């Protein structure tokens, strides 16, 4: 079969992937810079293409709770939003983590706090990777750095969400969401039939039949001993996710004396900075986390004996840098370089920071 290539925005690629992956329902609310997701979906008439339901909800609060209902009945459901809207969804994500429900949530991050700016940012790292809502939980967090990954991480997201019965967040940003790139489109997958849902997801509320006990989806345990056992079960799941699902990319790390650690748009900028520095004979590599939770500790630690310094490049005041510091301890200096407010750092200023901090001292 011929490879299907298209030039698409990141947000559009995400939406097309939803249809192609056999998603059952999208529930969303408009917010810049991700409104193209729902606009694309409504224009594409997925109800006719695959039977997929698309609904514009009255709020992000309603959207995420629609995901709860849909996921609890065994369906593949998704939403997308940007930072302020994602904040509104945190209660629902916490409930879904507690009730062990799968879903994919796209956050096309913009600058904050508050209404902030509509320009790209990575300032939601803490919120995404440390739970975000109340209680002890994590969502699996995937960080695309290309339009192709905006497409690919939909399928990967559902694979992980259903394998572990947990929310998955795709943590993108305004640049990846808005820019256009070449995308390789996958084949159309069938949505699961109701019969397949009943047999694949025996926990789902699909109507109590005589052959089984009733299914209850809840995050409530009034007995604290029962709640603690549930917490322990969740934590065991997170340890398994950390062991088995950590993903990252290492670029020119083999001989690196210095390391960039950067994800998403920052990783693309660092790639150019890396070329600038390498052309000056500075041996620097890039570790690009693909999963932000679980954080790819071993990808950094395997170079630790060789490297003299690590720089976390983020479009924030420095959030992922704390995870790097926790990973390497005091063995090497770990610095942060970042821009805020929706400003992208230039490759030159990132390279200059490295030279200034580590080379020209």
């Amino acid at each position: 079969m011929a490879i299907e290539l298209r030039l698409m925005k990141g947000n559009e690629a995400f939406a097309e992937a939803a249809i192609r992956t056999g998603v059952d329902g999208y529930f969303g609310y408009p917010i810049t810079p991700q409104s193209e997701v729902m606009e694309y979906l409504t224009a594409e008439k997925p109800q006719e293409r695959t039977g997929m339901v698309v609904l514009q909800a009255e709020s992000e609060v309603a959207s995420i709770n629609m995901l709860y209902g849909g996921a609890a009945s065994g369906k593949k459901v998704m939403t997308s939003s940007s930072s302020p809207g994602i904040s509104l969804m945190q209660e629902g994500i916490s409930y879904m983590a507690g009730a062990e429900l799968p879903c994919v949530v796209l956050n096309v991050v913009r600058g904050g706090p508050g209404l902030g700016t509509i320009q790209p940012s990575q300032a939601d790292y803490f919120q995404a990777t440390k739970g975000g809502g109340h209680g002890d939980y994590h969502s699996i967090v995937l960080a695309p750095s290309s339009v192709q990954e905006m497409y690919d991480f939909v399928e990967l997201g559902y694979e992980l969400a259903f394998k572990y019965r947990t929310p998955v967040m795709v943590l993108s940003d305004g640049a990846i969401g808005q820019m256009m790139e070449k995308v390789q489109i996958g084949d159309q997958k069938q949505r699961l039939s109701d019969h397949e849902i009943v047999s694949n997801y025996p926990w789902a509320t699909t109507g109590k039949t005589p052959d089984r006990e009733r299914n209850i989806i809840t995050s409530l345990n009034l007995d604290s001993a029962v709640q603690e056992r549930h917490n322990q079960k969740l934590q065991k799941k997170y340890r398994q996710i950390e062991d088995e699902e950590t993903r990252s990319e290492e670029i020119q790390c083999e001989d690196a004396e210095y390391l960039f650690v950067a994800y998403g748009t920052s990783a693309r900028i660092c790639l150019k900075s890396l070329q600038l520095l390498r052309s000056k004979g500075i041996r620097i590599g890039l570790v690009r986390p693909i999963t932000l939770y679980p954080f790819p500790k071993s990808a950094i630690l395997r170079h630790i004996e060789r490297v003299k310094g690590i720089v976390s490049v983020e479009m924030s005041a420095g959030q992922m840098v704390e995870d790097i510091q926790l990973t390497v301890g005091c063995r090497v200096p770990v610095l942060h370089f970042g821009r805020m407010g929706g400003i992208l750092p230039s490759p030159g200023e990132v390279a200059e920071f490295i030279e200034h901090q580590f080379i020209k001292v």
Partner: protein
Amino acid sequence: MAETLTKAEIINPANLVYKKTSLITGKVLSYCPGCGHGTAHRIIMEVIDEMGLQSKTIGIAPVGCSVLAYDFMNIDMQQAAHGRAPALATAVKRLHPDKTVFTYQGDGDLAAIGTAETIHAANRGENFTIFFINNGIYGMTGGQMAPTTLEGMKSSTTPYGREQKLMGHPLKITELVAQLPGTYYVTRQAVHTPVAVRKAKKAVRTAIELQQKNVGMTFVEIVSNCNSGWKMTPVQANQWMVDHMFPFYPPGDIKIDGKLVQK
């Protein structure tokens, strides 16, 4: 003189006049003695049972006294965040249009924190049924003022009575919902007497039957008591409900066949 009947003669299938539906689990209710929730649960489950819908029904109960409804209703159930049941139900029904879907919500849940979800699900004409238990108070958290608390009514956060200037007016959300074109059947019932229970059950049945016809939202309010929250005996609470709640929340049909009932 009548002969003395033996126990075996009394417990005889021929004498059976009532049997608990198997859709009520038998778990001891967590509700206070005298509360209307138990009766409301029973009539809904009886209707689901009588219509043979157990294997097709998904119930949703959010935060409030009835958060544990899934302990008592022998059907597949989802527990929702406070106020969000209509959002869950929207997705469940749209993704499973062949299922019977209902929410079971209290007045704080439905008419305060969940107002947006209630109004918009109704306005979209979502094809599920809302059972709305209105006792004018937050029962689970210990009797605080609800949006439905009557003027002058005492609660733990209106210890001197609800004062309209400070705390606003009680909200007739059922009348509000009935104004929306997405609702097809809106009624207000009670479960404090055998007659009221029979009428309420008929209303539940009407709502569930209409849901099978995809006509839009069906909405059954049940005005109930909260003897614990109201600090009354069950008998006093029922009387107080008749004397004070009913004048402001009068039982009866509000919208039938998509048309407002002319009073």
